[in-house]
């Protein structure tokens, strides 16, 4: 022993650490101790091993790293004496867990100790094995443990029984080896062994059906008798807990009986009497008694039906529920949740009490009760329950509101008897707890509102009132802003007044006030503000008298630091100022959103996500243009049969798209290539109000003629306008409108790229011809870029009438990228007296493997009647690439664009 050693005693170290006033001081002390322990470890100083490990354990508990002590544990375990082993095993259990490799090194020592002559050492080894054994160790040492189940000393038998539980949990295959010895333990008189034996049998039954059958057949009666003896046993001070003999054994026996009785009528019959006795005789004034009753109720609920017992059990739960002790009420709620599948009528009887528990001051009880109420709701009681819950929402704790709101929304969506009720309830929830409502919930609400055409006016008026009172509820504001944008005119003109409504007078400027307040409110985030801008644009069209004021508000955002807002306001301002003629068409009301498509998409958001990532391969050659994953694009599904059928949505974010707000990634990202990423923002596309295209996409704009100036922008916007109009039609088609983007921003990007027209190389073809119309195509390629082909489409009117509103649309499969320039005109004079030309650029990413192919659709008005023609062009010159037949496979998703000129 080194008298000069700086070693301190464990007690002194703890004292020194406790005396530390700051964390830094503590760290210093610990560091010093660790250093001396490390030194001592490397000196192999045997006298202090024991003490060092104890210190390390304390340091470990404080949360400091103690890896270097792991080997010390192993050394101590390998030492011969009991004291060393005792502390060694303790260290092993504390410092290591089953996932550490070091643990494998201890297997041998464990094996030796399991065979040790000193039973306390055997006990230590069993305890360690039971607490941290890995699957490998369990396999290696199972025979030893199995043998120890028959050891003479009960202390070892019970430890071996619990150790076996760990083993069969880690390696269920080993279960059969233990069944016989485990069943033998059930005949023990020693409580500890019986307790652990019962527990082992329960776990055996869980991992192996053979074990379950065996124990059910051989032991059920015996167990019933044991339970009877325990229940009727006289006072034994050793096991007494508040007047009950060994409640732990009671509970474990009941649990095993539950497993045995479940699904087996004979076994259930066998235990009926004793369960009735336990349920009726157990004292319920102390926790121990209640614990037994609780377990007993659960057993009665799980075993095969016996109505008499069930009544007894439900009565016990009723008593529990009205207990003053919170613990008892908590477990009652817990139990009722399981009872609801067995006897929902009986649980419904306690509805009022349960509803009271939702309002408890205890969060755990509230949570349980809320979940129970959620299960209790059905078509008959949904109105009463929802009203109660919403009333409570007003006064509930902040941290509970989120749960509560989610549950109410879910109940309302699930059981809503009628649309108006749904809208009423949702608006109430939004007014009370709008900030807690999840995005998909309010998106769903908007879909419902959009579909409830009878209640548009009612809803917008209700929202107008609500939003005056609760400006802080972000989601309420958003829904209100959206509805006012869409149905603002109904608000002012009191259209669609219902009998139950109070009349309200709202002027146009009141309506604009609401939006202005929202956009200026400090709590409004980017999404809300962006929605406000759209609403303002729409209102500017509906309320011409307020147009100037609206313009002022929009202009105020021109200087916004958030790129998204800045861009929107500049674009919208330009629409209001310069493009009066197209504004009204542009601001058309949204088409009714497809409810079923939305719910399908919501339900299958995962596959949809997978699909969209696949779709993103179909990137159009500009930043705002989107891969065609939106339902609207699918509607013009060119991969399907000749008559395009509106396909259900499989797209990305349907509602987001329609709202034109996909800003979830936050303002910090606005202005990056976020739109490209988010992918499918149909409305953004429609209005071309996505964030600025990423720099990488600029070259894609090159093909645009900047020289065409405002004319082009007008035409492009007109094209957009017509799109939003056609969305009412059966075959809506979103525009991907790239040109307005460029035009509105008035020309950025390098000057127009010069295409080398090479007529000689490729003959022109008649791409499409019908009775009324002929379309010819010229081809040219850019030198050095064989993948790109420039097409010049020429349209000739073969009839004797003028075509107006002429729109040419085209779609290509994924491996192609299509870019359409604006058409030269949108009016096609009669009898071949002139033509429309339009340039297209197609980039074939599989040049040389697949040939160009394209579906087209041409829409125009003939004597004010809509005419639609469509076809497929696959007769492109061979020089453009070899023929391919794989084009129209069913799952190909197509991109498309459309253009139109005034």
């Amino acid at each position, binding site marked *: 022993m080194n008298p000069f050693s700086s070693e301190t005693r464990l007690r002194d170290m703890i004292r020194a650490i406790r005396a530390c006033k700051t964390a830094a001081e503590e760290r210093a002390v610990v560091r010093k101790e660790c250093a001396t322990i490390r030194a001592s470890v490397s000196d192999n100083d045997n006298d202090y091993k024991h003490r060092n490990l104890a210190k390390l354990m304390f340091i470990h508990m404080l949360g400091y790293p103690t890896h270097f002590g792991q080997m010390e544990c192993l050394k101590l375990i390998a030492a011969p004496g009991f004291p060393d082993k005792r502390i060694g095993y303790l260290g092993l259990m504390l410092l290591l867990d089953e996932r550490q490799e070091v643990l494998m090194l201890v297997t041998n020592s464990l094996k030796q100790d399991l065979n040790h002559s000193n039973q306390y050492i055997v006990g230590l080894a069993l305890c360690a094995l039971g607490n941290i054994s890995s699957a490998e160790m369990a396999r290696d040492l199972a025979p030893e443990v199995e043998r120890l189940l028959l050891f003479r000393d009960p202390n070892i038998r019970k430890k071996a029984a619990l150790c076996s539980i760990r083993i069969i949990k880690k390696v269920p295959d080993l279960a059969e080896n233990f069944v016989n010895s485990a069943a033998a333990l059930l005949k023990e008189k020693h*409580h500890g062994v019986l307790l652990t034996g019962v527990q082992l049998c329960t776990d055996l039954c869980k991992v192996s059906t053979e074990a379950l059958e065996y124990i059910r057949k051989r032991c059920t009666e015996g167990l019933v008798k044991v339970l009877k003896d325990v229940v009727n046993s006289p006072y034994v001070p050793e096991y007494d807990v508040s007047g009950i003999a060994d409640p732990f054994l009671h509970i474990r026996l009941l649990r095993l009986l539950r497993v045995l009785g479940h699904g087996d009528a004979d076994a259930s019959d066998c235990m009926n009497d004793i369960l009735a006795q336990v349920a009726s005789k157990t004292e319920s004034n102390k926790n121990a008694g209640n614990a037994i009753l609780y377990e007993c109720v659960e057993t009665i609920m799980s075993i095969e039906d016996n109505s008499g017992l069930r009544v007894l059990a439900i009565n016990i739960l009723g008593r529990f529920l009205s207990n003053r002790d919170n*613990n008892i009420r908590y477990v009652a709620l817990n139990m009722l949740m399981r009872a609801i599948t067995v006897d929902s009528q009986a649980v419904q009887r306690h509805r009022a009490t349960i509803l009271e528990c939702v309002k408890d001051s205890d969060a755990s009880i509230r949570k349980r009760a809320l979940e129970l109420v959620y299960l209790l709701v059905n078509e008959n009681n949904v109105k009463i329950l929802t009203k109660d819950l919403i009333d409570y929402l007003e006064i509930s704790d902040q941290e509970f509101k989120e749960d509560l709101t989610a549950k109410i929304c879910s109940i309302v969506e699930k059981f809503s008897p009628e649309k108006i009720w749904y809208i009423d309830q949702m608006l109430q929830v939004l007014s009370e707890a709008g900030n807690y409502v999840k995005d998909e919930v309010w998106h769903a609400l908007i879909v419902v509102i959009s579909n409830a055409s009878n209640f548009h006016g009612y809803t917008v008026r209700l929202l107008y009132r609500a939003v005056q009172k609760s400006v802080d509820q972000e989601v309420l504001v958003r829904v209100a802003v959206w509805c006012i944008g869409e149905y603002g005119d109904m608000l002012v003109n009191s259209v669609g007044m219902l009998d139950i409504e109070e009349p309200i007078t709202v002027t146009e400027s009141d309506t604009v006030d609401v939006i202005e307040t929202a956009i200026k409110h400090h709590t409004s985030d980017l999404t809300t503000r962006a929605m406000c801008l759209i609403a303002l644009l729409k209102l500017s069209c509906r309320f011409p008298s307020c147009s100037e004021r609206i313009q002022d508000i929009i202009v105020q955002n021109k200087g916004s630091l958030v790129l998204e807002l800045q861009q929107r306001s500049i674009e919208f301002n330009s629409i209001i100022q310069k493009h009066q003629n197209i504004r009204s068409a542009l601001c058309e009301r949204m088409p009714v959103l497809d409810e079923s498509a939305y719910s399908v998409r919501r339900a299958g958001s995962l596959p949809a996500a997978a699909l969209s990532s696949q779709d993103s391969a179909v990137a159009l050659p500009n930043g705002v243009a989107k891969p065609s994953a939106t339902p609207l694009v699918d509607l013009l599904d060119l991969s399907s049969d000749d008559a395009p059928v509106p396909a259900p949505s499989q797209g990305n974010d349907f509602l987001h798209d329609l709202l034109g707000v996909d800003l979830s990634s936050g303002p910090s990202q606005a202005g990056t290539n976020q739109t490209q990423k988010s992918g499918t923002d149909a409305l953004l596309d429609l209005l071309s109000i996505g964030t600025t295209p990423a720099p990488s996409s600029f070259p894609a704009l090159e093909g645009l003629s900047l020289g065409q100036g405002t004319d082009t922008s007008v035409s492009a916007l007109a094209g957009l306008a017509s799109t939003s109009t056609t969305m009412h039609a059966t075959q809506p088609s979103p525009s991907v409108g790239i040109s307005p983007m460029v035009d509105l921003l008035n020309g950025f990007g390098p000057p127009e790229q010069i295409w080398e027209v090479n007529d000689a190389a490729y003959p022109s073809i008649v791409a499409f011809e019908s009775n009324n119309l002929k379309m010819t195509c010229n081809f040219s390629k850019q030198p050095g870029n064989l993948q790109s082909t420039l097409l010049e489409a020429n349209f000739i009117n073969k009839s004797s009438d003028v075509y107006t509103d002429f729109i040419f649309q085209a779609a290509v499969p994924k491996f192609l990228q299509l870019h359409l320039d604006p058409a030269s005109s949108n009016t096609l004079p009669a009898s071949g007296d002139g033509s429309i030309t339009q340039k297209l650029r197609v980039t074939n990413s599989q040049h040389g493997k697949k040939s160009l192919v394209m579906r087209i659709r041409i829409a125009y008005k003939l004597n004010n009647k809509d005419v639609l023609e469509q076809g497929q062009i696959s007769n492109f010159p061979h020089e453009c690439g070899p023929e391919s037949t794989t084009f129209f496979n069913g799952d190909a998703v197509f991109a498309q664009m459309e253009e139109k000129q005034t």
Partner: protein
Amino acid sequence: MIHFVLLISRQGKVRLTKWYSPYSQKERSKVIRELSSLILTRAPKLCNFVEWRGFKVVYKRYASLYFCMCINQDDNELEVLEIIHHYVEILDRYFGSVCELDLIFNFHKAFFILDEILIAGELQESSKKTVARLVAAQDSLVEAAKEQANSMSYIISQATK
């Protein structure tokens, strides 16, 4: 099954942890952090259960110390309260009206006692007397070994080695 046992002081200091399910060192400190903020803030009259990550944590406060045990959703919470009390009573008998300081300075003894009550997260012994007897027997083994080590004959035999 009990997944872990946690003793936390009123101030949030950890006094004892015992893990029956595998948690890495990092997870362990996270668990402790989460649970102490969850449990220490609860008002006294509330129920003794908190739901946490799909488990239930049963806790009980004795003087300045919170005894917490984490169990499965379908375990009997009321029984776990009894197990906690069982442990506390045995500690109390062993130390003679136990206080937090006893557990700080003799944390290893608290572990030894716990190891006689729980193995593999299951209850091992329902008799307090038996636990006390087993712990005492092992303590005396240690004492005997110590005495032997300090005895003259042992020192002489070591010296003459």
